[in-house]
């Protein structure tokens, strides 16, 4: 049962991170938050018995996407007006 509540907490965390990512003015923080959302999602996938997807989400969703975003931010601006 504890797992059930832990999952609820994770989902709630995911949503909070997502809202933070959208609202924050600092793009870098927003990208990192998005990365965290992916990470939490991959944990959720584990609960949903989808190991393949969890690995993919972790590797690509959290790792690669965040990297690309950061490179892009280096090329443009960090703070949203």
């Amino acid at each position, binding site marked *: 049962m504890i797992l059930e509540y832990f*999952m*609820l907490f994770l*989902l*709630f965390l*995911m*949503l909070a991170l*997502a*809202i933070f*990512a*959208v609202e924050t003015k600092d*793009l870098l923080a*927003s*990208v990192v938050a*998005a990365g965290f*959302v*992916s990470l939490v*999602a991959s944990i*959720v*996938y584990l609960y*949903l*018995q*989808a*190991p*393949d*997807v969890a690995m*993919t*989400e972790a590797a*690509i*969703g959290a790792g*690669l*996407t965040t990297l*690309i*975003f950061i*490179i*892009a*931010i280096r*090329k*443009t*601006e960090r703070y*949203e*007006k």
Partner: protein
Amino acid sequence: MAFFVASILLILIGLYAVLVKRNIMKIVIGLSLMDTGVNVLIISLGFIRGRTAPIVNVKDLLVNTSSKVVDPLPQALVLTAIVIGVAVTAVALSIVMLMYSKKNTLEIDEYKELKW
């Protein structure tokens, strides 16, 4: 049930960013969040309570696996969807970089020449 609600909310948050934010980078982030939300929704659709992952590496799973294993198809679809999501994001970011190199700003208002 909570997974559905959470994933739909995540999609809506992603869309919210696309609809409201004036910064094109934030829009791309919104799109990426939307993709994650969709993937969570698809996987939660394929989940069956009290079942294990569709990896048949133990002998007893060999016999009538359909009553012991989660639905594998959504997971296969999500695998493709994630990769496509990242591909689109990569191209989008390259476009954003190019736009920035031309106009030195990320604000949408600068990119409204083509209209009417």
